[in-house]
């Protein structure tokens, strides 16, 4: 049967089902196929904090959204063009995001009276006409999978579980995806369970064949590969890129990496990933709590390792005293905060940018800490290297603010040329016969010597008590304390001269409005800016990597525009810093829904500001 092939420039697919339906895996495989095909892409996993919420309920719905295109894209997309709903709960939880006319693939086998009642459907929406405005493909995915797997020596339950592979096969056919990667993946994943492996591959292929032969789909779609720069690519999540960035920082500095960590969503994957890289001399220590995790990292730094700790907001709260100790002892320390929605436990699997103030000021006393933020999943690699560079060069803890969206989202990453990565020079203090002064500073950076145990002649004592300038002896002298507080502040402030100036994207040079964000909102803001420009308006864009200290040219940049819009997924924390530190007013746009911004809504916000000029 020959089918019509329709060209599309971009598609947004959302896979949704029960937590146990394997939607993350399905989405991830479709992503890999799409990456291998050469489309640009961006992904947004969305899952509950519960591992297995009661089956078939709304809290148990897990979804994975993928945006892919024949051109470069910046976000996982605002609204799906296609929704795959594996059960009534998945339909109900996601239908509100589905625009009229979108394709809707539902697994009718799960639309039993009982499952419908669980989520409050009085009648079956698939048959009662309430989905008339969508292109509904009502398919018995489970039973078709079970039928396809007759003859395999597996249980009925295992056969039913393969329905996600059937769905993946169907979608792979529908969008012309290459299949070798998924077959190879299943072969590896189930290498020790050959029957399960064969059955899953068969289900995947059955889904593909079903697409080819059924009349339920008359059209097949094609999205041509995107234009990319030449090079070697891989698809990567923020947490994976961050982990590789930490390994790279170890290699580039020659320092052994020591990770002290305590499991916490959404940061745990960094611990998992780094624990695999022991061949690089990376030590990972799963501590008894967040405090011990950062303590061990700082102890390792004292001993000359690159101490790293990874956590999320609640963990930062617990670590704050030790971060203060790192400020006082002036030792390098990399603190990774993969932000999630708070306060307290909040929404562990949902994203937010509300730890900026905690990173800036969440310690007792005057305890300045450099803060930097990556702007996309792959940028987590560069941000980790930059954070390590600052930590080592300035002998200071550095807080890196990633977030749940960056951590779990993914995008293609052009692999960097390893030979071109920046070197990080530890510059340990050398053995000496002269009296050692542990707080004699480098006149340029104000950094103190890093003298590690084992170095003869440099025996010294550090700690949280205030130290006398230069000698490092305990000092209660009022004037000395004033000096030391100012020196520590000046050291961090001085980093502003050692970071790239803030770049502004203002193609027409005529913009009067600047949009500036920080961290994980880069994609959504950039997509919105494109839309605004496509509508014929001028707008400038900048994105802050360095939150503390601000790049030296920031005041000048902000002052050269009439209005500055600052979108943030918090209630205005960067806005407050800009007003408080620079006396420059900005227009905040703030949401805290646990979700990334939609570029369409940001477009409206920006246009409104421009039009009110």
């Amino acid at each position, binding site marked *: 049967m020959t089918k019509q092939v329709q060209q599309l420039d971009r598609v947004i697919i959302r896979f949704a089902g029960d937590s146990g339906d394997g939607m993350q895996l399905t989405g991830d495989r479709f992503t890999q196929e799409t990456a291998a095909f*050469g489309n640009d892409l961006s992904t947004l996993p969305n899952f509950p904090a519960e591992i297995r919420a009661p089956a078939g309920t709304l809290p148990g719905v897990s979804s994975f959204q993928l945006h892919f295109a024949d051109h470069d894209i910046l976000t996982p997309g605002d609204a799906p063009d296609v929704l795959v709903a594996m059960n009534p709960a998945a339909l109900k939880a996601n239908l509100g995001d589905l625009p009229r006319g979108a394709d809707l693939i539902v697994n009718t086998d799960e639309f039993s009276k009982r499952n419908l009642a669980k989520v409050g459907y009085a009648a079956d929406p698939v048959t009662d006409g309430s989905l008339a405005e969508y292109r509904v493909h009502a398919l018995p995915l489970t039973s078709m999978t079970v039928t396809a797997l007759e003859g395999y020596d597996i249980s009925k339950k295992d056969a039913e579980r393969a329905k996600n592979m059937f769905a993946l096969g169907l979608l792979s056919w529908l969008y012309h995806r290459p299949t070798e990667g998924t077959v190879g993946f299943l072969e590896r994943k189930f290498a020790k369970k050959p029957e399960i492996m064969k059955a899953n591959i068969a289900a995947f292929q059955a889904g593909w064949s079903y697409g080819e032969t059924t009349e339920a789909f008359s059209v097949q779609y094609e999205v041509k590969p995107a234009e990319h720069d030449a090079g*070697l690519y891989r698809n990567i999540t923020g947490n994976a890129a961050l982990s590789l960035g930490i*390994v790279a920082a170890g290699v580039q500095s020659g320092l052994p990496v020591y990770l002290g960590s305590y499991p916490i969503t959404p940061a745990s994957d960094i611990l998992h990933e780094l624990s695999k*890289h022991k061949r690089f001399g990376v030590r990972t220590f799963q501590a008894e709590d967040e405090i011990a995790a950062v303590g061990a990292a700082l102890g390792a730094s004292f001993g000359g390792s690159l101490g790293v700790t990874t956590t999320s907001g609640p963990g930062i709260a617990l670590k704050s005293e030790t971060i203060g100790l790192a400020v006082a002892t002036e030792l390098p320390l990399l603190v990774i905060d993969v932000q999630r929605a708070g306060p307290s436990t909040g929404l562990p699997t949902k994203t937010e940018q509300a730890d900026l103030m905690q990173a800036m000021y969440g310690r007792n006393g005057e305890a300045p800490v450099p803060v930097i933020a990556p702007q996309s999943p792959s940028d987590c690699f560069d941000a980790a290297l930059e954070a390590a560079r600052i930590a080592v060069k300035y002998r200071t803890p550095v807080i890196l603010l990633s977030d749940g969206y960056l951590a779990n989202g993914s995008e293609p990453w052009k*692999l*960097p040329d390893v030979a071109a990565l920046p070197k990080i020079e530890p510059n340990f203090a050398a053995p000496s016969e002269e009296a050692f002064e542990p707080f004699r500073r480098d006149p340029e950076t104000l950094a103190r010597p890093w003298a590690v145990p*084992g170095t003869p002649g440099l025996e010294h004592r550090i700690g949280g008590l205030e130290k006398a300038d230069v000698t490092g002896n305990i000092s209660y002298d009022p004037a000395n304390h004033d000096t030391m507080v100012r020196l520590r502040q000046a050291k961090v402030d001085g980093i502003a001269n050692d970071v790239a100036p803030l770049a502004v994207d203002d193609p027409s040079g005529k913009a009067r409005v600047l949009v500036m964000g920080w961290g994980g909102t880069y994609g959504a803001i950039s997509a919105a800016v494109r839309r605004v420009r496509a509508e014929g308006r001028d707008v400038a864009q900048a994105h802050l990597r360095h939150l503390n200290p601000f790049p030296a040219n920031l005041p000048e940049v902000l002052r050269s525009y009439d209005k500055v819009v600052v979108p943030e997924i918090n209630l205005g924390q960067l806005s407050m810093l800009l007003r408080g530190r620079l006396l420059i007013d900005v227009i905040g746009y703030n949401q805290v829904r646990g979700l990334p911004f939609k570029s369409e809504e940001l477009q409206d916000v920006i246009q409104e500001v421009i039009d009110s000029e």
Partner: protein
Amino acid sequence: MSDTNGNGALNGGGNGSAGGNGRSLLSLVPKTDVKQTMKDFKTDQEVRWCPGCGDYAILAAVQSFLPELGLRRENITFISGIGCSSRFPYYMNTYGFHSIHGRAPAIATGLATSRPDLSVWVVTGDGDSLSIGGNHLIHALRRNVNLKILLFNNRIYGLTKGQYSPTSETGKITKSTPMGSLDAPFNPLSLAIGAEGTFVARTIDSDRKHLQSVLRAAAEHRGTALVEIYQNCNIFNDGAFEPLKDAAVRDDITIRLEDGEPIVFGADRQKALRRTPTGSFEVVNVADVAASEIAVHDASNPDPSMAFALSRLDQPAFEHTPIGIFRNVDRPSYDELMRAQVEEAVETQGAGDLAALLGSGDTWRID
């Protein structure tokens, strides 16, 4: 020392000697070729404990003991938390880190597990280690990190001026408990044994010879050594250990544990310990029992029940107080195991290649 020519590798294991002390990790710490004296370990800092504090005696004991180990001074590190005892590192001319209340074992864990060439000592007090830092203490013990923890127990909060501590006796009248404290105290040794501690000992600030003999064994121990030091706070809890110091009674109540020896004590060695059918110990007169009924101390016994029963003997208040090494068993330290995994990864997979790592997984090339 049980092993002075070790190559630092994990292989070789414990030697199963009668003392229960397996291979010492001290062999990984560089030795000095100059003769050291106590003076080498003193700093130019003025010692600021109260006059008469037991900490002075402990400091002097440690400073005069360290030359015995013959380690390079720069390879010794003292890490402390917060409290009177935690000022200790400032007075030791080694590397030192005065950290945060309760967190010294955590910070020391990061140092010890990344630097096998260091001798890492933790100095802590009863409040620091058993109250705010209780979690880190028990986890260091169960992991058997290569740390020597000196727990100065004065049964009071000193630096905050006299509140009751987790080792204060129930009913203690202090500034924060005018009607008496309600807390049941911790027994630090029972806690350490319960936390899978491999080396658990007790000594007294005023008995330098005994203190140093325990420090010696602790230094050589493979993994975490917990040494409880009864230390007198003459300002806020003076005389807390008076019975053990009073020449008139001390010999009758102090049980000096000697590994492999019958547990006999008393001014005339007239008393002994016998195990009861329930596993606890009872005090008997040597004259009344057959020699075979007298318990023989066995610190290296893998079964911790005997050490635990011994640790209960000073309850409630110094009727019969054992000092010495209660438990000393051989088990690989966390540091060795962590190092071995890194070495194994390098051996089996080869040293890391960054370009290969970045390019691993599903990649595609665009020309």
